[in-house]
């Protein structure tokens, strides 16, 4: 099953650094986000449509229709603030 990683403010808000999440196949970023929002609470609030966050699949920035395979690494994080 895909490995999920959370960074920065979202890692602290969710209280999770990483997890493995079973997803019905075929999965996409959109279906993953739906599954996470269904947890309610901070998950539904932080990942609500229109909120600013980014998703990377295998360390590449992804969009809603990016497919997710069982061996993939998926990261969810806030807009970046380095430099």
């Amino acid at each position, binding site marked *: 099953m895909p490995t999920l990683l959370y960074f920065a403010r979202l890692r602290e808000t969710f209280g999770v650094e990483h997890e493995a999440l079973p997803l019905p196949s075929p999965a996409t970023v959109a279906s993953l986000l739906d599954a996470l929002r269904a947890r309610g609470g901070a998950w539904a609030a932080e990942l609500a449509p229109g909120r600013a966050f980014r998703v990377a699949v295998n360390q590449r920035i992804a*969009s809603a229709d990016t497919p997710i395979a069982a061996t993939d690494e998926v990261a969810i994080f806030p807009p970046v603030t380095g430099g």
Partner: protein
Amino acid sequence: MVEAIQSPHPADRVRVQVEAFDIGAEHARIAALDQGIGAITSFTGLMRDHNSGDAVNAMTLEHYPGMTESALVEIVTLARSRWALQAVTVVHRVGRLLPGDAIVLVLAASAHRGEAFSACEFIMDYLKTQAPFWKKEETPAGNRWVEARSSDDDAAARWGSAGTFARDARHDGLSEGAD
């Protein structure tokens, strides 16, 4: 599965590190590479002791090991596709930093100053908006995550869409359908 990190050009140096960097040594490395180099520009980002009107006592930089390095290499590759560059160095620190500490160094070398100036600014503008780093500040009122600034997006956008990398990465949120 995660792909291997794209290798930087042999003359380039891309590093994410906890340790401080030596600007003089980084400059000397590039200057010794190629006598066709006529210009080296440099940018050093320092930690301020204030932000958004508040005192900041310290900050901690977090990154996404693997993706951060790949993103930096990709940004340098984009710069190389736009300007004739002999060498580029990008060093970005992570971990806890204090006011006055150097955060990031960008050096760009070219035959003439114009390309070196442009490349250095381009790399910083893209780094600010594309490379996965996050800052958490320690202020007298408590700790807080720094929010992304739309002015940084504007600065990156003025370079145009320099490839799918920039276009894909610049939108906020992932709401399905129209956004």
